[in-house]
Each structure stands twice: as C-alpha cells, then as structure tokens.
C-alpha cells in the first residue's frame, strides 16, 4: 500500500467525498493505487450492501424514479450510493453525463454519494469499472447502491450481473420496445415497475407484465409488477418495501450469494480481457497469420502461452 492508497482508504472510512471521488477515479482509470486499494476494502461492508440495478428504455422516467427512491431511502436514514451510467460517443469517446441533473436536490446531502460514469466503449450498458465503484461506495459506508443504466434493448445484461436486484422500468406507450425486450431482459429482471401509471394504457401494460412475471411471483410470494408515478412520489414506499422483502428472500435462501459469485466470475473475466487487450493489440501486428481472425487469435494466445 502506498501512502496515496492509504490516504484514500482512510478517506473512505471517514466518508470524505474527495477521497471517495478520487478512489473511484483510481479504479476507473486503473491507476497504480487501484489494485492495492481494492484489496484493502472492508469485505463485510461489501457483503452487506444491497445493489439495486435500474434499467429500462429512455423516456420511462428512470432518473425521476431513482431520485424518488433516494428521497425515500434517506427518510429511512440509509446512506445511499448512486452510479449513473451514460453512453460514450463511439466517435469521439466523450460523453454527456446528464442523469445527474435529476439528482441535484441531493447534492448537499453527505449521505448521498453520486458518481456519473460513461460506458467508455463497453457495449453491455455498463462501464467496466462499475463493479469496482460499487465496492468503493460500499466500503465508504453506503448501505444501498442504485445503479442507473443506459437502457437500450438487449444490452442491459451487465446490470443484471452486477446488481443484487434488478428493476426494469417501463411506461405506457412503449409497446414496440416491450416486444423487442421480451426476449432478453424481462426474463432476468426481478421487478417490473410501470411508471407514469396515471397514463392511459398502464393497466393493460401491468396485465401483460404480470403474465410474464407470474412464475416468479408465485415462487417468492412477492408481487413483482408494481405501479408508480415517480413525479408525484406515488408507489415508492410500496416498491421499496417489496424490494426489501425480496432482498431478505434472496439472502435467506442463498440466491444473493450465488448471484454475487457469478458476478465475481464474470467481472474477473472482463478484467482479464481488459488487461490483456492492450497487450494483444500491441502484439497483433507481429502475427504471421494475416487473414483469418480465428486462426490469428489462436496464434496470439499461443504467443502468450495461455494454452
């Protein structure tokens, strides 16, 4: 541990915003301090944190819902972390991280820790370092961490891996999008939140969704399709109560642990790829095989004696 990483660690324990911010940057940018820092984090805090993933198509009101959830969690005196993810431009590599705007009411609350992150080239809807950021926030005392993602079609699988519980947010009027999504995410989401439920079509949407979620509801005896009107703070308490009950349920019968193990494995592989990528790119030019990608890949692997 360097003095720098020691200082950051101390800062995390003190809930110092600057330290938290810098620690997350360190793991995001994979600096020298990152590895030391991550291995020194308090494992109990990480084990006990609840990670909620919030995903869904644009326009469903995710940001507003997130803000309402934060408000309610704060009323319950919980220390909350939020990771808001926005897509990086594939052309410039830059990003507008605009989810923050809806959370500015919490800007001066020391127990709301927000970090905006860009996907930085990843297609999975989340950035590579979201997992590490979650652990940093947990180590700084956050009891519940909300991750709000980009929400475009099939690419939310990352969130499901990373979160303990995944909320999918829809709103009436998204008919076509829902059809497209049925194949993937709906099956893995834990809760379906019908936001803007004061709009026409909400009932019909709920009924559709209840069909899909009926097996899960039966199994856990918890209602999984819920209605909210985030702009009016309606349905938020019920949602949090259900999430809470579900959290106990998955902890009690080992589901949470299994999910975490799976996530750990998946993230490890991600990191292996991330770390090897620059080396492979560098070495690629030296490959004798020029045309077939699969053959070339095998050659690269052989070069690194990974067989």
């Amino acid at each position, binding site marked *: 541990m360097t003095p*720098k990483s020691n200082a950051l660690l101390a800062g995390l324990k003190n809930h*110092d*915003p*600057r330290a*938290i*911010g*810098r620690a*997350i*940057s360190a793991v*995001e*940018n994979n600096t020298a301090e990152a590895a030391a820092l991550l291995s020194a984090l308090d494992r109990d805090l990480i084990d006990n944190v609840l990670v909620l993933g919030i995903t869904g198509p644009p326009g469903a009101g995710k940001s507003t819902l997130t803000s309402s959830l934060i408000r309610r969690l704060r009323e319950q005196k919980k220390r909350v972390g939020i990771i808001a993810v926005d897509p*990086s*431009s594939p*052309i*410039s*590599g*830059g*990003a*507008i*991280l*605009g989810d*923050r*705007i809806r959370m*500015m009411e919490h*800007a*001066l609350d020391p127990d709301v*820790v*927000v*970090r*905006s992150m*860009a996907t*930085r080239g990843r297609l999975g809807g989340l950035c590579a370092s979201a997992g590490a950021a979650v652990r940093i926030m947990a180590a700084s005392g956050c009891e519940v961490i909300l991750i709000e993602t980009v929400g475009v079609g099939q690419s939310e699988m990352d969130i499901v891996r990373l979160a303990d519980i995944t909320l999918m947010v829809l709103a009436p009027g998204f008919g076509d999008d829902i059809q497209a999504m049925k194949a993937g995410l709906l099956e893995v989401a834990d809760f379906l939140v019908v936001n803007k439920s004061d709009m026409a079509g909400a009932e019909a949407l709920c009924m559709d969704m209840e069909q899909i979620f009926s097996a899960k509801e039966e199994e856990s005896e918890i209602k999984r399709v819920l209605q909210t009107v985030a702009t009016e703070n309606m349905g938020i308490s019920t949602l949090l109560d259900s999430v809470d009950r579900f959290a106990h349920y998955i902890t009690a019968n080992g589901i949470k642990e299994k999910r975490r193990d799976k996530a750990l494995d998946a993230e490890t592989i991600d990191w292996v790829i991330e770390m090897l990528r620059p080396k492979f790119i560098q070495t690629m030019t030296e490959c004798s095989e020029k045309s077939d990608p699969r053959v070339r890949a095998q050659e690269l692997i052989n070069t690194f004696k990974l067989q």
Partner: protein
Amino acid sequence: MTTQQTPYRVLIGKPGLDGHDRGAKFIARALRDEGFEVIYTGIRRTAAEIAATAIQEDVDVVGLSSLSGAHLRLFPEVVRELKDRGGADIPVLGGGVIPDEDIELLLKEGLNAIFTSGTPADTIIQSFTTASQQHRDHDAQK
C-alpha cells in the same frame, strides 16, 4: 482530445437564477465531441451544489456560465466552495455576458480563464484541454 489516457472529466453548470442555457449546452456538446466526459448540472444551482458535485465527480475542470450579471458574486463563490471542500486544485473557467473590465477581477478571485460572448468554441475547448492537462499533471506529481 485524450487518446492514450482516460477522458478528461468536466462539470458545466450555471450558478444563480439565470435560465439561459443555450451557450452552456453547446459547449457541453462541443466538449463531448472532443472526447470529454461532461457532467452537466443544469440551471439554478447554488455555488455549494456545484462545488459539492465537482468534488464527488472528481472532475478535472469546472466550467460556469452566467448571463445575468451575477458573475462577480457567484463565480468567486464557487472557487471558495471548492476550496472549502478540499478542491482548491480544480481549475474554474467562466463564460457568458461578462464585460471586459470584470475579467481581471475574476482572475484575481481565482478563476482560471474567462470567455466573453462571441469567443470561438475552439478557443474555449483549448482552454478546457489545457486546464485539464495541467490538473492531471499536477495530480500525478502528488
């Protein structure tokens, strides 16, 4: 533009009550097109909110916009709030409807650069890039 290193992070915000965000939004997008990660905090923010957000997000630069004439009061306040929160090293740039004679005052109060209306976007982006680079270099040395 950052190719090898990780993207620079900047915060763009409007302190005070002024609601004209056309310029701020354009700069935010232009910065994004140059590879910056831009945290846009919108209008009607207090200096404290802007500073707290900048610290949380660990930005390299803070950019402020004001068209209501309140810059002399509000821009230095953001600098102060950053300092109070341990972010004295984060450079602050400002732009908007700002008469030339206020520029020196603002620079004395700790602003890094000021852009009056009509300044080409390229000039502004160059300033952000330079300030970000300096901030990163300074960080690396610590």
